[in-house]
């Protein structure tokens, strides 16, 4: 199997998995889930790191990669922390009832 075919299979199966992962979501969780998924989309740090690793010490690539890494990590670190802050508000209330809304 060529690398491309393999990558396309991965794309297809990943998309199908994503479609199935979320079923019913209580309205109180809409924003936290959005925020958590957003943090995960910061996984593009991997692309930034790969760019830096393959830069062969060319300065423009290192700078672009570093900038990109900064943006992606801002997304990841901020995203997970903010999601945790939101979800921490639930644990103070009874988990059964969730939010009041």
């Amino acid at each position, binding site marked *: 199997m060529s690398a491309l075919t393999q990558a396309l299979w991965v794309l297809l199966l990943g998309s199908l998995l994503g479609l199935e992962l979320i079923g019913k979501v209580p309205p109180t969780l809409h924003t936290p889930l959005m925020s958590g*998924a957003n943090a995960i989309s910061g996984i593009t740090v991997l692309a930034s790191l790969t760019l830096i690793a393959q830069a062969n010490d060319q300065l423009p690539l290192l700078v*672009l990669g570093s900038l990109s890494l900064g943006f992606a990590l801002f997304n990841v670190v901020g995203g997970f922390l903010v999601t945790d802050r939101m979800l921490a508000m639930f644990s103070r209330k009874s988990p059964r009832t969730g939010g009041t809304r």
Partner: protein
Amino acid sequence: MAGLDLLPALIDLGAVLLLALGIKGLSKVSTARSANGLAALAMGLAVLGLLIQQPLSPQAWLWVAIGTGLGGVLGLITAQRVPMTAMPETVALFNGCGGMASLLVALGVALFSPGEGSSGLVEQISIVISVFVGAITFSGSIVAMGKLQGWIDTPGWTQSTMRHAVNISLAVACLAGAIALPGDMAGAPLWVLVVASSLLGIGVTLPIGGADMPVVISLLNSYSGVAAAAAGFVVGSQLLIVAGAMVGAAGLILTQVMCTAMNRSLVSVLFGGALGGAAPVGGGGEEAG
């Protein structure tokens, strides 16, 4: 040799599994907080696996440290300082930066083509998608944040049908840039694509009202997953492809769920009240509670 290859592969598989469990757990109140931690752990694992596979030179480490320091510290400060009531716009800001990251990677590959140098059609298409979706995600998210913060008003012309003409011409410009790109990877077509996609992101987000913004942010979040998957094709990372695809698809479902909860259809959110549909239910923006 075989052992060296196997370890990063296993780490990657573990990361995908944890990411999937994380997304799943985030949709239940009782498990949401631990699931968030699980997803963060998965992200750390994924980075570890990559660093094992692709050793960095000392100079590369320096630039990694700079990027990590800037992004990490700013993210930490922002996450702690931002008030609870401003959550949707904060998510929009983070999301836009994720899109920008994918855009920058694609730009780097297009401008300086590291690695083997011979760029095939697949790489060119991936670059186009990564730039297009990344730019829309960035500019759209920034506009969404600005509108929620009250920094940006809705200009009158965006409520007329004229905006469709503007957006369609921008889309045509994007298409032209995309078609011309393979002939001239680092030249004008690339910049046409970057500028037109960014303007298109503004053009489609600007007309949408504040109450519908959380839905739009969720949709843009889905886009940033797509941009990440495209960046995965650009740099050849299967883990990135699968994670991006997962977030893209899950984000789409969440967008649909949020629309249903607001008693709106996605079409009426995106193309405005002119197409009819129920009036937006109040308080959509305060769901974070």
